[in-house]
């Protein structure tokens, strides 16, 4: 019997295709928004959490913990100050330090950040719980003007081994001054990691110094072009400063005391952060915004559900005759009640399913752009439990909302009798 009422509910909805489709669309959009926000949040968190691994401390000039983490690991924002080479050497030579990877940021190439570092980077930088960087082709930089590029850089710019590139001073995409007199050559392409490494161009620290010969004042000296490559190679290219240092310790248990001694270094203001601690601080900051966003998207879902209520309530008057026919052929008031609840639930279910489908289509379409622009990897987030729960919750809520028009129709069908007074 209930199956046959469900069939009636379905045909009744099909009879009002236009308004039913609009209602389904409203529910689908609201569900897609909610799931999209949720998936972006999770994707961002997972992306951030898996970006760095195996590094005990990150040292840099004194700034906020979150800020240091953001610019050194995620290439977001700029360093406000750097640490001097002697300070780096002090770190490097400490007894309790197993390895260090100095990095130097500040230049770019067609929107991709350039990172000056040492070959130790390829050995010690780990991500996703301990994976090392692997070369798809080529190898580490060897010569002064060699560059190793991330997978995204290679695919987006179409670079391969031997491609030449000119770096830009500063981080703009275009229109800024370029280091066109010192072109680089690609000697290695890294495998995809799903981290900001994919979007980074790696060169040696010395190369960073070399391309800035003649730029000591911050802009290009007119004489800079007259300094030949041979002359540059002859200079002492030891960097004066580095932006940050990744540090691995011999004994992880000493992590806090090493941090303290870096924080209180007398030579210059310096600080060290534990990546995990800085990350959880970042979550604290962002969770306020996340919760606000989640709250807003939940309200939008509520609006979608109310549209189900609206569409059924507005149809109710026009359907009094239909109800009395059903009563006349033997439908009980409970059947009328069930018919309307079933319509609401069907609208909710189809709308929610359409929303899930929509969000996955959108993620599939926009995922690569998000990954490229913001390093948020959403492509792997296929249909999950979250989708199932959302569909169940929306259908359940629609079912309960359907109770309102169902109750009205139920009362009416008792009062109307067989003949509707229209």
């Amino acid at each position, binding site marked *: *019997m209930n199956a*046959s009422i469900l069939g*009636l509910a379905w*045909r*009744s909805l*099909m*009879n*009002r295709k236009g308004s039913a489709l609009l209602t389904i669309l409203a529910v689908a959009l609201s569900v897609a928004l909610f799931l999209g926000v949720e998936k972006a949040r999770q994707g961002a968190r997972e992306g951030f959490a898996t970006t760095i691994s195996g590094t005990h401390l990150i040292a840099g000039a004194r700034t906020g913990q979150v800020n240091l983490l953001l610019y050194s690991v995620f290439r977001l924002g700029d360093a406000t100050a750097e640490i001097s080479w002697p300070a780096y050497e002090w770190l490097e030579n400490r007894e309790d330090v197993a390895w260090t990877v100095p990095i130097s940021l500040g230049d770019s190439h067609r929107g991709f950040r350039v990172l000056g570092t040492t070959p130790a980077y390829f050995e010690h930088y780990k991500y996703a719980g301990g994976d090392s960087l692997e070369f798809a082709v080529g190898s580490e930089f060897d010569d002064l003007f060699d560059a190793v590029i991330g997978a995204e850089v290679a695919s987006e710019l179409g670079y391969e081994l031997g491609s030449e590139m000119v770096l830009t001073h500063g981080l703009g995409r275009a229109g800024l001054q370029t280091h066109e007199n010192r072109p680089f050559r690609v000697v290695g392409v890294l495998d995809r990691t799903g981290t900001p490494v994919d979007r980074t161009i790696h060169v040696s620290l010395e190369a960073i110094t070399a391309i800035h010969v003649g730029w000591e004042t911050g802009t290009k000296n007119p004489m800079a072009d007259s300094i030949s490559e041979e002359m540059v190679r002859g200079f002492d290219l030891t960097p004066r400063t580095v932006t940050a240092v990744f540090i691995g310790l011999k004994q992880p248990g000493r992590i806090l005391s090493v941090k303290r001694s870096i924080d209180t270094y007398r030579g210059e203001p310096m600080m060290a952060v534990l990546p995990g601690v800085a990350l959880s601080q970042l979550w604290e900051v962002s969770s306020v915004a996340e919760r606000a966003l989640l709250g807003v998207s939940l309200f939008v879902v509520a609006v979608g559900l109310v549209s189900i209520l609206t569409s059924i309530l507005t149809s109710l008057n026009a359907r009094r*005759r*239909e109800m009395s*026919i*059903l*009563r*006349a*052929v*033997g*439908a*009980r*008031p409970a*059947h009328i009640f069930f018919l309307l609840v079933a319509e609401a639930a069907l609208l909710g279910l189809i709308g929610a399913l359409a929303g899930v489908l929509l969000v996955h289509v959108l993620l599939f379409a926009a995922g690569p752009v998000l990954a490229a622009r913001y390093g948020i990897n959403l492509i792997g987030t296929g249909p999950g439990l979250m989708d199932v729960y959302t569909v169940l919750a929306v259908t359940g809520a629609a079912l309960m909302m359907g109770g309102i028009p169902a109750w009205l129709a139920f009362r009416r069908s008792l*009062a109307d*009798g*067989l*003949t*509707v*007074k229209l």
Partner: protein
Amino acid sequence: MTALVDLKGVRFTWPKQPRPVLDLAEFTVLPGERVFLRGPSGSGKSTLLGLISGVLAPQAGEIHLMGEDLVAASGARRDRLRADHLGIIFQLFNLVPYLGVVANVALPLRFSARRRAAVQGAPDAEARRLLAALGLSDPELLERRVIDLSVGQQQRVAAARALIGAPDLVIADEPTSALDTLARDQFITLLSEEAAQTGAGLLFVSHDPGLASHFERTVDLMEINRAAQPASQGESAA
């Protein structure tokens, strides 16, 4: 022989109305009988049909349907009795707009196991047989949306629906008031014949005294309804 319908001393007042709309000493329909119930607007026809079908409950009196006490029966029981034993045709707008012609005819079988059991073979086949008997056999016509049928065709679909599964009583509430004379007479003849075929009683309600000749017995509601005084004709009736 148990009467199909048996009312005694029934009085019914609509909520918030000062006076009863119906006050009957007695009214019966016997099995297989074809009764014409005549009455102008406001004479309480629709109320009487609501009472017989168990959708309305009287304030006083006894109503028996198929020998069963409707007043004492629960709402669910009255719904079951209606589904199993009655076929109802309204004045207009008889059909569920989102169901096809055949599905509309087969609709009562969804709600009554008894009537489903009375149909030999598939519900759709029986629906088509009844439609054909009532002059609707064109396959193209049966595929149309019900709102695209003419009024006369709609009323015949409604008649087929009232007859399917051999109910004991068919109630027709002004089913011909929107039809012209020829279509009207044709409709009544077909309905009477089909009802006779299944042995169903027929209670045909209309304000039109000219129809009386089609029936075995005529009851004038104005005469038996003690509440229907000429002064009260302005009351709501529908």
